[in-house]
């Protein structure tokens, strides 16, 4: 058996894996924030996280969030009965929005602000 890749199945794969990854990220995020109890440790962790590799993975995180958000929005539209002929255009619309957000997001991430 071979899996057929088309916009719907690609969206399904991305949605599933980004969903699992983002849920696991909650643990990591809360762990980092739990260091707020100790200001000095928090500052040292924030300094350690200020590295190119972390910035790049934050961009990856933004991709997961953007893809999951706009595909989720698309899924809700499908659930409420959007005509089948719009399913593919909606996928590409979500993909374009996702790409624009990644482009906008890469500026403060990689560019400088934070």
């Amino acid at each position, binding site marked *: 058996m071979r899996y057929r890749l088309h916009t719907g199945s690609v969206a399904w794969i991305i949605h599933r894996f980004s*969903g699992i990854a983002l849920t696991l990220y909650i643990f990591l995020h809360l762990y980092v924030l739990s260091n707020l109890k100790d*200001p000095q440790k928090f500052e040292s962790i924030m300094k350690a996280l200020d590295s190119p590799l972390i910035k790049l993975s934050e961009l990856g995180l933004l991709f997961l969030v953007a893809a999951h*958000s706009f595909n989720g929005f698309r899924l809700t539209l499908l659930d409420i009965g959007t005509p089948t002929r719009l399913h593919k255009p909606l996928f590409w619309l979500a993909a374009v929005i996702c790409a624009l957000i990644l482009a906008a*997001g890469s500026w403060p991430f990689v560019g400088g602000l*934070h």
Partner: protein
Amino acid sequence: MKQIIEWFFQRITGAVLLFGLILHFYTMHYSGADQISYEMVSARLSNPYWIIFNIIFLVSVIYHGFNGLLGIMLEYVHSHRIQKICEGTLILVGIFLTGVGIYILTV
């Protein structure tokens, strides 16, 4: 009925998360440098509006994430008993994480 309510809450929390994340990213990455310093973070956490926002955001993300995981698990696990164990475990972990999050919010 339970499944309809779960579906509905998954959409509601999804919408909350989309708007919440826009605000979250804007605050963290577009409102000038050093928004993640200890001072700035603890200043936000002493603001009641941010506390309310953070609690809603926290509860939404944990519900959405763990309900999503449950949905995935139920597709692969067919034994009713193991499905119940999965559900119970995810609820416990979700409640634990919510507790951790609220504990963090009370800096």
